């Protein structure tokens, strides 16, 4: 028999958030070093982790997850992107419909799109850590 799907235990949430913050920063720094001249374009908007009304898993990442699944095939360092995807899957409530993410056609603009997603995700994780993890811990 298969175990019922249980939401991620809350004792894991802080660890997941810390791991995501660290990996997000690493991926961003690597991409910045790799793609000289590419900067953020504010017209691209990545939704941050949303609060899911259904307790106890009050963090939901399905919107962000779709973005990372979209940029994965476009990235050179897929291992770290895969790690982010795995962690986001733990914060994802299953019932939200899949959304489409359109990617710019031209390469340079696509790189700006990817960089913006990584930048905004890193900022998002800093905010979430600030909200969820008291300074002392």
């Amino acid at each position: 028999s298969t175990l019922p799907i249980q939401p991620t235990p809350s004792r894991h949430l802080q660890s997941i958030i810390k791991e995501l913050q660290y990996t997000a920063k690493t991926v961003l720094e690597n991409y910045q070093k790799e793609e000289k001249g590419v900067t953020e374009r504010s017209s691209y908007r990545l939704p941050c982790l949303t609060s899911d009304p259904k307790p106890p898993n009050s963090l939901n990442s399905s919107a962000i997850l779709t973005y990372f699944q979209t940029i994965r095939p476009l990235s050179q360092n897929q291992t770290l992107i895969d790690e982010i995807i795995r962690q986001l899957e733990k914060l994802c409530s299953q019932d939200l419909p899949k959304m489409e993410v359109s990617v710019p056609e031209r390469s340079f603009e696509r790189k700006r799109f990817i960089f913006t997603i990584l930048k905004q995700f890193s900022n998002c994780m800093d905010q979430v850590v600030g909200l969820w993890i008291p300074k002392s811990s």
Partner: protein
Amino acid sequence: LAALPHKPENISCIFYYKHNLTCTWSPTTEAKDTWYTVKRILCHEKERDMCTNKTETSCFIRYPNVTNPDDYTIEVEAKNADGIVKSDRTHWCLDSIVKIEPPKIDFVKPVLGVKQMVQVQWERPKLAPVSSTLICTLRFKTVNNAEWKEVNFSTEDIHLKQVYNLTDLQAFTEYVIALRCMAEGSQFWSDWSQEKMGTTEEQAPF
């Protein structure tokens, strides 16, 4: 006479952080025609197969398909021509079975004007969970002494370079120092770091 495979037992798993999750079980020597399938059930998702149709009694799943923190239920299925036998379900919290890489000691040096102490600059293993506090054991002995002494400390700092002041030493003496760490809550220590030497400062006669 039908001969079902032996029931897989003594399942043990280690999570080599950012490398792989390795599980082994007994009986270690099984007939050649027995195949194993390891089922990994994640707490936040449906069943997910780990290793399928293998004859060895071990299996591993590579990072990033395994990321901490997570809780897994692991079940091993043995199969031969005569049938299938399942192990008991075992439950694993990755944080408790994570094994990290050893830290690295950059240098050991005396601090000017501070007697009977050396400063150990070391590097937090790059591959260690940033979400975990590290518990570390520093062992030291004088060069020609066989017996090690140990001090324990913990660190939440995730920066690479860290410093530990080793005090209450003999003056003007050369020490050998090594360091190992574990993620808080884990059963597994890292290996010891490479040993480093350092000498305490000379003390003026009274």
